[in-house]
């Protein structure tokens, strides 16, 4: 039961973070497979079943733009941040830093009190 609750809470915690990580990574152009590898290399474990639908959703929200292009004799879809996406990312990062600092402070003070 505890494991199930942990999985569920972990999923919730990761969901927003993944969006932030994907948007940050797409400040430079990537196609799906290299994006996944880059995220994995940086410690963000994301499977294709989550990443590709997320990319499509972000594109439908006009935060990303994409184009099909040939590379290494294969057609690949390249994604990058749109102008709106850049603005949203900056706002999200500001929010993230504030939230992170606050949570860090709360966690530290409650640990020292314990």
């Amino acid at each position, binding site marked *: *039961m505890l494991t*199930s609750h942990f*999985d*569920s809470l972990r999923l919730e915690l990761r969901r927003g973070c993944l969006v932030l990580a994907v948007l940050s990574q797409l400040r430079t152009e990537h196609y*799906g*497979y290299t994006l996944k590898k880059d995220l994995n290399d940086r410690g963000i474990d994301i499977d294709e*079943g989550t990443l*590709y639908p997320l990319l499509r959703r972000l594109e439908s929200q006009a935060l990303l733009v994409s184009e099909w292009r040939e590379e290494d004799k*294969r*057609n690949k879809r390249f994604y990058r941040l749109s102008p709106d996406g850049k603005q949203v990312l900056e706002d999200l990062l500001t929010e993230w830093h504030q939230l992170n600092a606050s949570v860090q402070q709360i966690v530290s003070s409650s640990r020292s009190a314990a």
Partner: protein
Amino acid sequence: MATLLDRYIYAVERHLPQAERHDIGAELREMVQSRIDEGAAARRRDLTDDEVGVILKAVGRPVVVAGRYATSQHLIGPTVFPYYKATLWTLAYLGAPLLVIAMVVGAAAADNPLTGALDAVGRSVTTALAAFALATIVFWQMDRLSPKQDLDDHWVPQALPNPPEASRGVSRAYSISQAILLATYLLWWVDVLPLTRLLRLVPDGVGVPELAPVWQGVSPAIIVVLSVGLVINLLNAWRPQVPRWRLAAQLTCDLVALGILYFLVNADALVVAPVSGLFTPLADRLNDITTVGLLGLGALIVLSSIDGGRRLLGNGPPEGGGPFQSFGPALHEWSRTWKGARGMRHFKSPLRPPRVK
């Protein structure tokens, strides 16, 4: 010869909305191909089908992978949603013939056949809504109680079906069933099959209702439409890859049939009692029932024409063959989806205590 990857992509695409099907399929193909290439580079040889199968299993069951791309499934999550969707389609396909039967029975039993048929439709719609609501509640609960992981990890990528060779493929079973139906009707119409005479229990001359003279006028057109339809379906059964000319001929046939139906429905009477008297009320009722039947037939032909037109323009479903051809695949998909019910052992019953690890 389709590769395992082709078969996998096809299996995913058939669960995706038409508009996004090829786009998502192409991107998915590129992703899986990248993994295959990476595996091949690491081994310095091409991967075997078994090794590709391992990659595909890691990517996920086609129906679940497609489900993750759905944009509106807030109540039921992507893991359970494909099973919910398959169940709803199966209910719809099973319900459609029941609705037709209910209409016919309702029309025959009521004083006014048209009102009877409409009442039957009303009751059927209420029942269908109740069934859909019940299915939604059941799957919503399953989604809440099941773990957020694929319900089935027992599927075998090598067992995925081949994609049709071309987008104008047609099911042999559908063509044969259509051919049998048309042949029977044609033989009855030209009086080779003595069905009418066998059903006539009373001698001639007592005023038993019979078809109105209006049918005589359209009889040659009916024979031509039935004959052409029969030939097309026999050709489809023989060569399931349907060329454009055959699609165009079928569409023309459908449109002519609609013209005939329009002419008949607007006629003063379709069934008449030759002698006024005992059988006149029966003739009136048969007249109404025949009108309802022709309208139903017209609706089916309109659906068939839309399907044929879409496939003629190249926008049709991957497997064509009439508006109801997907009934077979729907049931097949339902069984394949639920074949994974073995994976349902992961489903956590609220009545069963959790296993302590």
